[in-house]
């Protein structure tokens, strides 16, 4: 069985799709789907559905099935992570200077003047109904912390029973790969074989600027997190869960992360 692959930029990162034993045109259709989701969910374009939703904060707004599902996923992530994975920290992200796509560079931080403080629990500022949703006035949603894993899971479903999707390091793989041993994925300095599993990495080494500024906001402080970890990689049963667990562990710090990941994940890498 032949291995087909496709790489392309989207979602502010590099995307890699792999497929065994199927029509490679499915990869092109998958890439188109991801690009359409990017246009729908980016907060960096004023006419995206997410930007429109944030612009109507305080009012119930119609949302597409995709955005509704992702908002529900954001609430699930918040619960699973004990409040640490928080899609409602948009104000803090903007205050750090992360106001435009990272490739264009950060803008001047305003953290010193805004004094944001802790972000209220997500379930107190976001309500999701059938086909409509509302975020509390004065707040906004950023899906950057949960969307890629969720999208990877759904795209693998579309690609079939032997496929791998890697969206900027957020991975989900179905089936046994090309050689039947599992999908070989670089993980913590070695190669692991994924079988119907996800993997993800969270850390502050990638998107960092200024004096200790980065994109991983701790909702308990409303500021870029300060932890004794720089990077966490995890394996989980789905790409969405891997992304949630990795970010949760990163924000928890080493001691709590070891315990938390031991309860939830079959594999993890902590740096340093």
């Amino acid at each position, binding site marked *: 069985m032949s291995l087909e692959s496709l790489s392309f930029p989207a979602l502010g990162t590099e995307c*890699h799709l792999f497929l065994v034993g199927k029509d490679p045109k499915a990869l092109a259709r998958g890439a188109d789907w991801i690009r359409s989701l990017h246009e729908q969910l980016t907060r960096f374009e004023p006419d995206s559905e997410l930007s429109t939703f944030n612009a109507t904060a305080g009012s119930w707004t119609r949302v597409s099935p995709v955005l509704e599902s992702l908002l529900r996923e954001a609430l699930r992530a918040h619960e699973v992570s004990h409040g640490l994975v928080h899609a409602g920290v948009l104000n803090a992200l903007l205050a750090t200077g992360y106001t435009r796509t990272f490739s264009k560079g950060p803008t001047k931080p305003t953290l010193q003047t805004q004094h944001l403080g802790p972000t209220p629990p997500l379930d107190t500022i976001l309500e999701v109904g059938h086909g409509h949703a509302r975020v509390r006035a004065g707040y906004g949603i950023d899906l950057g912390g949960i969307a890629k894993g969720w999208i990877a899971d759904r795209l693998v479903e579309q690609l079939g029973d032997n496929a791998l999707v890697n969206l900027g390091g957020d991975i989900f793989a179905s089936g046994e790969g090309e050689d039947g041993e599992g*999908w070989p994925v670089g*993980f913590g300095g070695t*190669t692991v*074989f994924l079988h119907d599993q996800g993997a993800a*990495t969270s*850390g502050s080494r990638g998107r960092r600027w200024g004096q200790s500024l980065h994109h991983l906001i701790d909702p308990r402080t409303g500021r870029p997190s300060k932890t004794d970890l720089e990077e966490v990689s995890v394996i989980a049963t789905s790409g969405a869960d891997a992304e949630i667990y990795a970010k949760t562990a990163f924000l928890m710090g080493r001691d709590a992360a070891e315990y938390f990941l031991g309860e939830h994940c079959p594999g993890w*890498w*902590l740096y340093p």
Partner: protein
Amino acid sequence: MPAWSLKLAAVLVTGLAAVGSAGYVSRHVKSDGAPLHPPVISSAATVAGGDGHLNLKPSVQSSDDQQPITFTSVS
């Protein structure tokens, strides 16, 4: 029955219980090499590489020889 005999019996029973317990414990010391001792394995293999720590439970297969097709990383 005189009271002193009851007191003596109580002291003897207590003393015998203490001596017997100590003897039992000393004859049943845990032996790591005992044939029926269940193997104790760690729940996760921990490997320190550079300054990082990799933990893989037995359900995860890994190889240092196999080239990965892709990798997870900070994006």
